């Protein structure tokens, strides 16, 4: 029988409570020390006043923030129509790369070349080349819109990454699952669709979420070919006001979206790791 004290705690619990209190004190103390150091020491730097006026100008922030928020709607819209296309194309490329059918061998090569090329070129270059290049062939309006071709550049680039993640997911499903499906007389296509893919997709959701967080940020690259989304709008304000604060405002808006999404992806990832162990 374990001895308990008045509070009904075992000596192990009392010991652990003490440990927990101590580590909380230390963590709180060191956090406070770092915070104070930043708050006190940074403003003591000789250039702080200039930096503050250029980057953290409240007046400029208040004036530009609503318009930045308005411009961010365009980022969200571009994200919303690109993301489903990326999922579909990424999945198709992953399947093309996985195909064993010799008749589809060219597709497999094409899939490999596609992922190599689009993962190897900086996104902004793809945006330029496709955004200006294809319309330059002489397409009539509205088919030469930078929204269409800029989005396509994002879709092509991100599908390449997303395809690779899907493929790693497909390969992570044990071969025995495919054997079991085949031994039941299921076709290769049905094995993939009903047995392999559902498991593969579930496994890569956290990784894919990180890709889509990156996509939301990279939507800003479309500003290079004309669309006035938040990054360009902030740049316009920066130029007119000779002040970098609008960029800080834009960063705040991005963070408001990406931090919760990143946290959620991390949570899913941790949950999955727990389940698998």
């Amino acid at each position: 029988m374990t001895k308990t004290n008045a509070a009904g705690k075992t000596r192990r619990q009392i010991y652990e409570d003490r440990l927990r209190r101590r580590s909380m004190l230390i963590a709180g103390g060191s956090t406070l020390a770092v915070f104070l150091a930043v708050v006190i020491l940074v403003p003591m730097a000789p250039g702080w006043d200039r930096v503050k006026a250029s980057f953290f100008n409240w007046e400029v922030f208040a004036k530009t923030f609503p318009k930045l928020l308005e411009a961010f709607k365009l980022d969200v819209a571009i994200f919303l129509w690109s993301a489903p296309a990326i999922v579909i194309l990424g999945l198709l490329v992953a399947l093309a790369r996985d195909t064993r059918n010799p008749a589809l061998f060219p597709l497999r090569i094409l899939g490999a070349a596609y992922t190599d090329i689009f993962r190897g070129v900086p996104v902004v270059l793809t945006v330029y080349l496709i955004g200006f290049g294809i319309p330059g062939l002489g397409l009539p309006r509205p088919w030469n819109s930078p929204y269409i071709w800029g989005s396509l550049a994002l879709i092509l680039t991100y599908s390449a990454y997303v395809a690779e993640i899907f493929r790693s997911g497909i390969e992570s499903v044990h071969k025995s699952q495919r054997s079991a499906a085949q031994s039941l007389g299921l076709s290769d296509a049905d094995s993939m669709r009903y047995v392999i893919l559902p498991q593969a997709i579930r496994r890569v959701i956290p990784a894919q979420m990180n890709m889509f967080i990156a996509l939301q940020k990279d939507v800003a690259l479309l500003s290079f070919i004309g669309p006035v989304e938040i990054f360009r709008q902030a740049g316009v304000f920066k130029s007119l006001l000779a002040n970098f604060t609008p960029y800080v405002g834009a960063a705040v808006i991005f963070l408001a979206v990406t931090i919760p999404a990143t946290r959620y992806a991390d949570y899913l990832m941790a949950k999955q790791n727990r389940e698998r162990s």
Partner: protein
Amino acid sequence: MAKIILKGVEKRFGDNTVCDGIDLAVEEGQMVCLIGASGAGKSTLLRCINLLETIEDGEILLDGEDISLPGLNPQPVRRRIGMVFQSYNLFPHMTAAENVMLAPRRVYKKSRAALRPEITELFKRFGLADRMDHYPDQLSGGQQQRVAIVRALAMKPEVMLFDEITSALDPQLVGEVLDVLRLLKDSGMTMVLATHEMGFAREAADKVCFLKDGKVIEEGAPSALFDTPKHPDTQAFLARALK
């Protein structure tokens, strides 16, 4: 004529010959047990019969028809030959019932509603009536393996292959799975087993084959093979296995 006939089946993985000229005949309704040390080629032989592996040489006949013909579509053959694996291989994202209904739905184009009574009967028969809507990770190893058997049976196969299906089970769960095999044998199913359960092989099999290094060293009725093994390799193996 025998249900399954193997003639000089050869299977290589690179330089490694796993089946080295295997001859075997399985009569309709017979239970044949393949015994031998790990790596003797038992599992590979079963996978070859189910066309999960292609063979380099030899023939595999099902009802006299060569199913090892290069270029033959394996899917219709696999529907006639069910297979159960050592590691169950249930689909973890589906309930037991969905696992069982998937292949009949896709291959025979039957609806869930049409299948439900039929498979409920199967689940009942194998003591799984209250486990139909559980996911695999909610089932014990023995229950999972029985669901895997039901899943193979739902395709109404003519032959069943069992690849060391009790090897991954805790000892106290082995019995419930072996009971299922007995039940199947009584119903007249043609079965080929790779197994380490010597007691079961001796009691239930119609024929036992001892494999070593990809060859059938000795085969015969269980009583003959277990009691009076002729080949020294068989004697050595049984001495170790029955210790």
